[in-house]
Every structure is written in structure tokens, then in C-alpha cells.
């Protein structure tokens, strides 16, 4: 139950770990954007080297990143196969009915494959080196400009923070209820789809009800400690950009420059 995407953070003190979460979040999005700038083998090579360099900086073994690719491997192979079999151009190697394997198709397939892997590596790097909590802080900080159009950013941030904080607690509760129902004879994950769906009810309803209790008690505790909502609150946790964040931004700029330069060839 604890194999959640968000819970995969690996504690560490590497150069990447210590970056401001806002930098990491923005850089990851930016990186995913510029992956699409790459269009030939030189640009892909540059991207690949840059990504490997970042992975090396994070000090996390490459195995973790490969494991990130694994769940998506069928999707990747499927997309690659489509490219290989349906794109026509250049030398024809094989041809049967409407299926063609051509030079252009093979190249396109390889590029798509690399593109997928790069994007997955980058998002894995983000989740492995950033605590979910810091990510929530980063989201809050980056959303702040939306206050102008009356988006309740502070409230959203509190909701996000409480949600993240209660994920493990609710997981524990789920396991407990599952075991309690098993002990009373409920079979989870057995039978046909309808039986399985029916078996989930004795899990969902108690969980739902206990969430109400939790919400009620939490709200009482928050009020007792003076929570009145609004923007008058001060913040304990603050984010600050440091020198390394500027270096990271510079690195991204250089990468973009190189890509634009080599793209033309």
C-alpha cells in the first residue's frame, strides 16, 4: 500500500536535493517542454547527456530510474511500434500490405523511445529528490499570482498539505478495515468483476464514515488552536532561492541554446 508515486522520495543531500522545490518543479516542466525541441540525433544526444549528468548529480542509482520506466514500457513499445510500422520514407527495408518498415520509421521510433525515457527520467528525478511536502509548498508559492483573480491559494495550499499529511494515516486505516473485514469473512480481490466491486463496499463505507469523524475532530482541534482562515497567517516554512537555483536556471538556458543551435542541422 505504500508504493505510492508520491511516497517515493529518497532522502539525501545531493546538489539536486538541496535545490529549491520551486526551481525543481519549474525546471522539470520546462525540460519536458524542450524535449520536444529535439529533432535529430545531435539534439537527442545533448538531452541524454544532460539528463544523465543531472541523475549523476542527484547521487541516486540509475536502477531507480529504470524502475520508473517499467510500468510504462508497454505504452512506449506500442507507440514505437506504430511509428515503425506506419511512417513511410527513405529506404524501404520491408513491406507487407499496408505495413512498411522504412528508414524514417525506424529513426522516428528510436526518437520517440528516447523522448519517452527522457521525460520519465526527469519526472522520476523530481519525485525522488523532492519531499511531497516541499512540492506542496512549491505549488502554493507558484500559484500565488492567481490570488489576483481571486483563487483562494492559501486555502488550496492548506487542503493540499492536510491531504498529504493524511495519506499515510488513511492508508493505515484502510489496511486495518480490510483486515477487520477479512476476519469477518469478506474476500477481497476474488470472484468476477461484480463480486469484486461488491466486496469493496464494506471497505469504502467505514472509511468514508471515519473520514467524517477525522474531519470533524481535526476541525475542532484547528479551531481550538486559533485557526480563523484567511491571509493574516504567518508562515513557518519559507522557501528561498539560493545561488544554486540560479546555476540550475542558467544550465537550463544553456541547454535550450544548444538545442536551438543544433536543431538547424
Amino acid at each position, binding site marked *: 500500500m505504500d508504493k505510492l508515486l508520491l511516497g517515493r522520495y529518497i532522502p539525501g543531500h545531493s546538489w539536486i536535493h538541496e535545490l529549491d522545490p520551486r526551481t525543481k518543479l519549474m525546471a522539470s516542466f520546462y525540460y519536458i517542454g524542450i524535449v520536444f525541441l529535439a529533432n535529430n540525433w545531435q539534439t537527442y544526444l545533448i538531452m541524454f547527456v544532460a539528463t544523465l549528468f543531472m541523475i549523476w548529480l542527484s547521487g541516486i542509482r540509475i536502477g531507480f530510474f529504470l524502475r520508473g520506466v517499467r510500468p510504462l514500457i508497454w505504452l512506449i513499445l506500442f507507440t514505437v511500434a506504430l511509428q515503425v510500422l506506419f511512417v513511410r520514407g527513405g529506404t524501404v527495408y520491408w513491406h507487407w500490405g499496408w505495413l512498411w518498415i522504412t528508414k524514417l520509421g525506424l529513426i522516428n521510433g528510436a526518437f520517440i523511445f528516447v523522448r519517452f525515457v527522457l521525460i520519465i527520467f526527469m519526472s522520476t528525478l523530481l519525485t525522488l529528490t523532492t519531499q511531497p*511536502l516541499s512540492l*506542496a509548498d512549491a505549488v502554493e508559492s507558484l500559484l500565488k499570482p492567481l490570488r489576483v483573480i481571486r483563487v483562494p491559494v492559501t486555502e488550496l495550499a492548506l487542503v493540499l*498539505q*492536510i491531504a*498529504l*499529511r493524511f495519506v*499515510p*494515516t488513511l492508508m*493505515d486505516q484502510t489496511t486495518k478495515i480490510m483486515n477487520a473485514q477479512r476476519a469477518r469473512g469478506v474476500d477481497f480481490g476474488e470472484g468476477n468483476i461484480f463480486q469484486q466491486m461488491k466486496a469493496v463496499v464494506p471497505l469504502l463505507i467505514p472509511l468514508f464514515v471515519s473520514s467524517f*469523524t*477525522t474531519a470533524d*475532530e*481535526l476541525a*475542532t*482541534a*484547528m*479551531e*481550538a*488552536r*486559533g*485557526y*480563523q482562515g484567511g491571509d*493574516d*497567517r*504567518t*508562515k*513557518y*516554512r*519559507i522557501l528561498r532561492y539560493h545561488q544554486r537555483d540560479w546555476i540550475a536556471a542558467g544550465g537550463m538556458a544553456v541547454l535550450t541554446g544548444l538545442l536551438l543551435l543544433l536543431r538547424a542541422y
Partner: protein
Amino acid sequence: MGNVIRVQHLNYTYPEAKHQALTDVSFDVAKGEWLAIIGHNGSGKSTLAKNLNGLLAPESGTVEVAGMTLSEETVWDIRAKVGIVFQNPDNQFVGATVADDVAFGLENRGVPRDEMVKRVDESLERVGMTAFADREPARLSGGQKQRVAIAGIIAQRPEIIILDESTSMLDPAGRQEVLGVIRELKDELNLTVLSITHDIDEAAVAHRIILLNDGKINEIGTPSEIFAHGTDLLRLGLDVPYSEKLKDALIQRGVTMPKAYLDNERLVDYLWTLHSTM
């Protein structure tokens, strides 16, 4: 030493309930006192606690805390003076980490960050949780979570701490740990403690006990006065302290015992003198 809490003719009925949860409750609490409120399930203990800091609004009667009469204008000032530690350690943990949780109340009051950091460190130090500052609640024991809840409250520098059955979901070790911390803090910070409890041994260490029964005050007295009722307490759905049980068992076996309540120490003294043949 003046009274820090003064409750007069308090009545409260939950919306949709047929019976009054509290009927004509009046009592005073002196500054620096440790007061225990005991009573069976549904006797109105928690309702009383929530009436003291405005989480519930009294139907009639007045509540005065630290010189302020509870009303809509004063409720937030009163909450700043009264900290409550609730029963369920998980459901009152707001922050994502220990330090965040301790800071939560300070954030609400707009305490500047420098001051906040100082107070968070200080409070964690006081409850002995400094080493856990970055931990998430999922990785703490129940007793540790309650210690964090206490730290979150003393960071706000209250005058009164209410323990609303705060030890009832803990194991005996966690219970001792939490009560130990409270006892130390009480003397150090000159706090007034109101402990609402089922645990009779926790009530036995209080200065005074309020015995609630069906929303009414049955009796207010020192532990010796209350526990002198002995097994009559069982009728009110309460337990009796261990020493009282032992005394009862000895009387049934024909040992002559004094009628007055004896705590553990005095009981040992008494048995020792009884046994002595000198």
C-alpha cells in the same frame, strides 16, 4: 492566587438532543490548580471542556476565563489562553511534520517567523521531542504525537491546559510519559491544568476533583474526599483507585482497614505498621 476560570450556572443542550448535556454547572478553578473532571461516558465532561473555550456556546450561564467573559468578541483571546489536548493523537495533528504542527497555532496568530522558530524549538525542547522535529506523524508513536500536541499548545503560552481524555488512547507507558511532561510543565510555567479523564489513577494526583453525573455536578472535593466513597463510585459508572480496590479486598478477608481514602504510599505505610509486631 485568583480564580482563573469561573463558571456560573452553565447550561448546554446539543441541537437535536432531548436532554440537557450540562445542567446548572458552577465551579471555580484557582490559578495553578490541577483539577480533574471525572464521570461516566456521556456525563458531559467533553461538552464542558468545549464550553470553556467557546467551541460550543453556552445556552445560558456565564463562563469567565482569565478575567474575560466568554462572548463572540473575546472567544479568540480566550482560545489563546486555553490550550486543549484532545483524545485522538492522529486527528489533531494538523502539520505535515512535527515542527509544522507545533508552529500551526503560532501561524494562526500571525507570530513573526523569527519568534516562531524560537518558540517552536523551545517548546519541542521542553517536551523532549527536538530530535523528531522533521518527522512525519505517521512515524511517531501515540505518546509522541500527544507530546507534540502539548508542545503546540505551550508554544502559544497559554495559562490553562485542558486534557480532554488525552491519555485514553495511549498504552500505559505513553500515558506515564504524557502525564510526566504535563506535570513538569505545570510547575515550570505555572499552568492551570484541567484533566478530563476516565483514568482514575490520573484523577488521584489532582488537587481537586469534579464528579459529573448526567450533566450535573455530583460533588466537588479533594481526591481523598471523593475516593472515600469507595465502592459507591462504581454505582456512578466509575472505577476506584487501585489502593481502594486492595483495601476493599482486604476488608473482605477480615483485615481491619481505616475508612478514609489511602493513596498507594499511605496504604503501604498502613500495611507496614499493621504487620509490624514491635
